[in-house]
């Protein structure tokens, strides 16, 4: 290698060698100034090539700092990458791959890194010891918020972007038999051995090129060839194997239970803002590994001496990397300071690159073959000495002062000698990278002779094997043999037999160091004394560069009693920076152990936590943003609402129309108009989102009697009843109307937001506590679209479309009829949430839009008015009806609501009953639901406002309760409110006060919560208005005039490399029954004409029917659309006395079909199941998860192709997720 020749890419660039592409020159900008580098450079190597050492100001004292390392451990060179929306703070320059046009800036300095006003802190350092902020700014406590703003500003790192990130990010699940972390010699050998056994292997490395330490090694050979050629050969062999996946530029961030690991990959296609929006920027890998081999290497340990934080002081291994890997000689006159034998090869490499080199060895009498060779090559050695001062000026080191160390290494003696140099390399041995092992709950042990922590034992829930330098095996031979052994063992544990040959012999590098103390290879001295006692004088010993903590801070911590490692770290902030103290932790522990006179392991070590290096939020979020952050479930009528300009509100995860503003209307105007229309003519509400549960079985009454507070024993078929559900605390958690459809058949409704909770509540009781109850519950929420017709004209409008006598005798209030509406099968409930004459019409979801549109047409002459949830809230409040979850909050009993009438006194038991007898629930003076009228009838008080008895000039005031519902009611003609107030029933008539945040206070009178006391009107009261029936729709119009389409029919098929479309609509029946009951099984199989699969996650297909196993007593039948009725009827007839349930769910699900070469990769983005072609084969099916959606996945072809069955309200979510994912395969 020759001396540096200034090339276009920097004056420190060597003329030959390195892993860079000299054929191309890349322009980049640092702090606004233009520089050049080559492909293969990192930002750090390119800056050093251009002789830029000073890259930032320190966190606390604003001291100038330079590039310290060449890897992920970098504590100093954190830069702000790019600007505006694409900016990323705190990027380690040592890991940023150079790309054309890259722009980076130094952080934590103003106005510039060279002239930084914050550096005044350094002058004031005596006043800023560890714990300074806590001690100084904590009093008075109320001012901390003020101080903090300025402190944060002064002690900041980078700035986070304020604009929306124009990039997109990917996120995927992955599965493998063996995961190998680290692509150095041990990792490569492990990956090869494991892959050759046939195991699925993933190998990842944080750098863009595999090879690890071998990339910086020009002197070792493996199997007779240069080490780097061996690396190329292994990579080529791995790339040729189908069962090996290589992930460069991928950092393992976290190692969690059961070998679940998270890694972050930077896309190699993505280079800066020019790529934004074109290709994904980063990909988060969520890997479930059978076995893990950690070959993460080791981090060089610094030596800490007086002012060793100056720019130009670097880890010696980093200097070696810059020379050998990047062909950059960062200094011409290099002083190395070492306490061990690892220095000699580096010194020789530096000399070979054209630098003049000398070594200061803190050991007085070290002698090794390597040292002898260095001596022979003319490298000057200063044994038994240390550096006591650094001559630093104008951004560069100019020289050092050295003195002799005392025998015990605690002080310096003798004359002071000045030596010139422009770069200092420090070598304090190696710290094995045990972070991941520790994250996985692995216990560490301390090796006394090697002075480092290594892996000890792992809990059973993880299985990691450590290999190579991270296990303190530093010799290349050992790395290869340990890697080989680890690869074989991991594959063997995963059930694969090793077929690899033993690793090749290495050409032993005679200079390879033995770093044990007992052999004299290392002197355990890292905090080096200077001519002033530590903490005195102007020189500082920074052991922690990232957070600016000094050895003097550790002494202070010890004096003040913060001696345990957990206290030490928080007091001094050691190890709490974004680098997690990769270079500082062990030196801090050692310093504390010396101060306290106890061994290092007794001081302890902290548990390392994820992430290993910081992750971006973009990567964590991945596809889960915008419409994919939370599924937006929409009703079948959503498009109509949208076209009408409805304003939507989120209820649970549903989008419900809140109101339908007409041209020029405010929300207030629209809601008032809608409320009046419902009571004066006819309102129409989309109530499809209400939870619906189908209950079948002879013990339904027993179940209902336990679930609800009232008595269900005497509800006749065809009748409906309202009920309150309590938890075991006796508190209301849901309510709804349940109807008896047949002797042993009920239809339950729940609140929109409570649907899943109620379904789970029922299933949990049935499955765990009351398995003897003969009841099957089936969720049918999406099966039906529900239209609520309200108001005086609703009966006449309905009468036009149904063939059903509509009078109070044949269809009384609180009853249900199964009929047809305009030809569509329908269930019509005469129930009311508004206190108006009302019908809730349930039709199969696919007809929902058709029915809605037909009703709007036919209802025009009655003045039909679509209304939203806001008007619904007002209307029910006018009647004093509660909304569970708004007027209740988990602390409210039925008695608190004044609903004693619904709580059975005769039932021996129901869920929550016993709690009503508890002293706290039974006491007087609880918060109770009352009405509340403002003195000013035009004033609508905000919900959540407090109600007080006595007004004071300022908070706090004694709170009696709060307003739970508050509206302007056009029907009452004034504002109305509901409130939960202490002892509210007894206070009716009292005047209380509601103070608001704006300082105003309002007088309110407590009243009964029913503002419109008239009972729900009968049909007979409806005056005839002489309107002519509509001829266009009639009583069968929809059956013939409308083509039934899937509720998700607005889904556009996706075509291209991978295609996604909705499968043709099929009939579906959910079947439940006991497979051990032979009669049931035989009858079901004969009626369905298919064998019921009894094995979990299997299906049977025959002709145009498919039957899926969906639970141990549950199946899902896919059949022709017109068969479902006949099938359920035949089952009923043939199994009259058998406990089973057949429930039509045709409209409940949609089936998407995904077909294409990337289908597995696309599903893996959000599905945790291992879909490897050998593990999930054609015909296989499984119920699993895709993002937030439960899916039934069925592999239908080897292309590969999948049917994805999903509740239709999640169809759009799944489709959009897959479309988003298609951008990243």
């Amino acid at each position, binding site marked *: 290698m020759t001396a540096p020749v200034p090339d276009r890419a920097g004056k420190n660039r060597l003329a030959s060698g390195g892993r860079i592409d000299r054929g191309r020159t890349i322009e980049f900008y640092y702090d606004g100034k233009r520089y050049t580098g080559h492909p293969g450079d990192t930002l750090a190597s390119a800056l050093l090539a251009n002789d830029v050492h000073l890259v930032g100001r320190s966190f606390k004292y604003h001291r100038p700092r330079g590039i310290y390392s060449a890897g992920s451990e970098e504590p100093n060179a954190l830069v702000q990458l790019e600007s505006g929306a694409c900016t990323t703070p705190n990027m380690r320059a040592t890991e940023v791959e150079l790309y054309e046009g890259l722009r980076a800036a130094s952080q934590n300095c103003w106005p510039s890194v060279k002239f930084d006003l914050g550096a005044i802190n350094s002058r004031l350092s005596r006043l800023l010891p560890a714990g300074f902020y806590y001690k100084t700014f904590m009093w008075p406590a109320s001012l901390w918020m003020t101080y903090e703003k300025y402190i944060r500003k002064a002690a900041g790192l980078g700035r986070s972007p304020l604009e929306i990130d124009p990039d997109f990010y990917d996120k995927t699940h992955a599965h493998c038999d063996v995961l190998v972390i680290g692509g150095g010699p041990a990792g490569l050998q492990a990956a090869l051995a494991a892959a050759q056994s046939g195991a699925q292997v993933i190998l990842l490395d944080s750098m863009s090129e595999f090879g690890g330490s071998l990339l910086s090694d020009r002197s070792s050979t493996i199997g007779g060839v240069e080490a780097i050629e061996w690396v190329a050969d292994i990579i080529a062999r791995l790339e040729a194997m189908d069962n090996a996946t290589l992930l460069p530029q991928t950092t393992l961030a976290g190692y*969690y*239970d*059961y070998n*679940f690991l998270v890694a972050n990959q930077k896309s190699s296609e993505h280079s800066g803002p020019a790529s934004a929006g074109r290709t994904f920027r980063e990909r988060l890998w969520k890997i*479930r590994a059978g076995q893990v081999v950690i070959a993460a290497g080791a981090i060089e340990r610094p030596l800490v001496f007086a002012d060793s934080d100056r720019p130009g002081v670097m880890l010696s291994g980093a200097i070696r990397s810059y020379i050998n890997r990047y062909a950059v000689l960062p200094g011409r006159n290099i002083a190395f300071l070492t306490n061990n034998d690892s220095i000699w090869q580096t010194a020789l490499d530096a000399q070979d690159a054209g630098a003049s080199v000398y070594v200061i060895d803190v050991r007085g009498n070290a002698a090794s073959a390597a040292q002898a060779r260095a001596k022979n090559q003319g490298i000057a050695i200063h044994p038994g000495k240390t550096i006591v001062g650094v001559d630093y000026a104008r951004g560069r080191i100019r020289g050092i002062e050295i003195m002799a160390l005392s025998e015990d290494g605690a002080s310096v003696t003798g004359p002071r000698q000045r030596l010139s140099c422009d770069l200092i390399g420090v070598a304090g041995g190696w710290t094995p990278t045990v972070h991941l092992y520790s994250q996985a*709950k692995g216990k560490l042990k301390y090796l006394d002779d090697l002075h480092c922590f290594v892996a000890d034992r792992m*809990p*059973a*829930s993880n299985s990691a094997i450590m290999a190579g330098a991270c296990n303190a095996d530093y010799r290349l031979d050992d790395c290869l043999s340990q890697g080989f052994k680890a690869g074989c063992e991991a594959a063997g544990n995963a059930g694969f037999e090793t077929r690899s040959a033993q690793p090749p012999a290495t050409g032993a590098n005679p200079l390879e160091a033995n770093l044990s103390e007992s052999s004299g290879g290392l002197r355990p001295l890292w905090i080096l004394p200077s001519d002033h006692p530590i903490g005195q004088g102007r020189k500082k010993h920074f052991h922690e560069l990232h957070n600016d903590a000094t050895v003097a801070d550790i002494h202070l911590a010890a004096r003040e009693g913060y001696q345990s490692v957990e206290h030490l770290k928080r007091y001094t902030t050691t190890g709490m920076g974004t680098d997690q103290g990769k270079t500082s932790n062990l030196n801090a522990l050692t310093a504390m152990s010396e101060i306290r006179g106890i061994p290092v392991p007794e001081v302890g070590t902290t548990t390392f936590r994820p992430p290993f290096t910081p992750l971006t939020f973009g990567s964590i979020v991945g596809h889960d943003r915008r419409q994919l952050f939370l599924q937006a479930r929409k009703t079948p009528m959503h498009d109509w609402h949208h076209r009408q300009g409805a304003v939507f509100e989120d209820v649970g995860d549903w989008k419900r129309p809140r109101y339908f503003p007409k041209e020029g209307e405010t929300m207030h105007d629209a809601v008032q108009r809608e409320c009046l229309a419902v009571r004066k003519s006819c309102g129409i509400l989309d109530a499809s989102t209400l939870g619906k549960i189908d209950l079948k079985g002879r013990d339904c009454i027993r179940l209902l009697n336990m679930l609800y507070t009232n008595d269900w024993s005497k509800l006749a078929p065809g009748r409906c009843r309202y009920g309150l559900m309590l938890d*075991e*605390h006796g508190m209301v958690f849901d309510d709804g109307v349940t109807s008896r459809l047949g002797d042993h058949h009920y239809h339950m409704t729940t609140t929109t937001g409570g649907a899943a909770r109620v379904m*789970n509540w029922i*299933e*949990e009781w049935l*499955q*765990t*506590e009351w*398995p003897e109850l003969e009841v099957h519950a089936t969720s049918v929420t999406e099966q039906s679209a529900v239209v609520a017709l309200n108001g005086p004209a609703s009966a006449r409008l309905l009468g036009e479309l149904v063939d059903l006598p509509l009078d109070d005798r044949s269809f009384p209030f609180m009853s249900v009829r199964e009929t047809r509406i305009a030809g569509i099968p329908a269930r019509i409930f005469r129930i009311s949430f508004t206190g108006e004459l009302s019908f809730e019409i349930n039709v199969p979801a696919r007809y929902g839009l058709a029915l809605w549109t037909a009703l709007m047409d036919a209802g025009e002459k009655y003045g039909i008015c679509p209304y939203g949830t806001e008007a619904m809230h007002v209307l029910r409040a006018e009647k004093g009806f509660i909304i569970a979850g708004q007027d209740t909050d988990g602390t409210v009993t039925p008695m608190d609501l004044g609903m004693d009438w619904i709580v059975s006194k005769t039932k*021996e*038991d129901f869920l929550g*009953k*016993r*709690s009503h*007898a*508890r*002293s706290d629930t039974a006491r007087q003076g609880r918060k109770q639901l009352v009405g509340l009228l403002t003195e000013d009838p035009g004033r609508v008080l905000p919900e959540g406002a407090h109600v007080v008895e006595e007004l004071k000039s300022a908070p706090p005031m004694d709170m009696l309760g709060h307003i739970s519902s508050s509206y302007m009611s056009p029907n009452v003609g004034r504002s109305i409110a509901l409130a939960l107030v202490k002892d509210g029933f007894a206070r009716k008539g009292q005047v209380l006060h509601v103070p608001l945040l704006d300082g105003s206070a309002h007088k309110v009178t407590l009243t009964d919560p029913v503002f419109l006391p008239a009972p729900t009107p009968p049909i007979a009261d409806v005056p005839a208005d002489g309107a002519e029936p509509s001829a266009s729709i009639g009583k069968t119009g929809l059956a013939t005039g409308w083509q039934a389409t899937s509720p998700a029919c607005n889904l556009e098929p996706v075509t291209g490399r991978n295609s996604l479309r909705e499968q043709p609509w099929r009939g579906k029946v959910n079947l439940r029954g006991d497979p051990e009951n032979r009669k049931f099984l035989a009858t079901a199989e004969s009626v369905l004409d298919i064998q019921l699969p009894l094995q*979990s*996650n299997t299906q049977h297909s025959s002709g145009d029917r498919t039957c899926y196993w*969906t*639970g*141990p007593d*549950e199946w899902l039948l896919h059949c022709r659309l017109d068969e479902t009725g006949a099938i359920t009827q035949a089952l009923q007839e043939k199994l009259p006395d058998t406990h089973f349930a057949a429930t039509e769910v045709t409209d409940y699900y949609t089936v998407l079909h995904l077909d294409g070469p990337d289908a597995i990769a696309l599903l893996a983005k959000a599905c*945790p*199941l291992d879909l490897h072609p050998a593990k999930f084969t054609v015909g296989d099916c*499984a*119920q*699993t*998860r895709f993002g937030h959606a*439960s899916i039934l996945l069925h592999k239908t072809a080897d292309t590969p192709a999948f049917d994805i069955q999903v509740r239709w309200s999640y169809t759009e979510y799944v489709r959009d997720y897959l479309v988003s994912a298609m951008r990243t395969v």
Partner: protein
Amino acid sequence: MFIIDCPWCGQRDQSEFTAHGEAYIARPRQPGQLSDEEWGDYVFFRKNTKGIHYERWVHSHGCRRWFNVVRDTVTDRIHATCKPGEPRPGVKE
């Protein structure tokens, strides 16, 4: 992130499941006969075990069945899973 052995579906990712708290807390047969303290025990009090813990899970994104899990809260090792109604499983060492 555990791997949980659903008694019906086999080993699946934890994200398919939901935890439902301590297992083997039978609902009293006759709540009316219980003292406030006994009822309070049932409603409010749960173990916070360091070590072997019996808990109830549901395979919410799979077969939607409830089952019991024996987990060591220190190591997060799952020793066994079983269907409701089956005898309380022991702990393998």
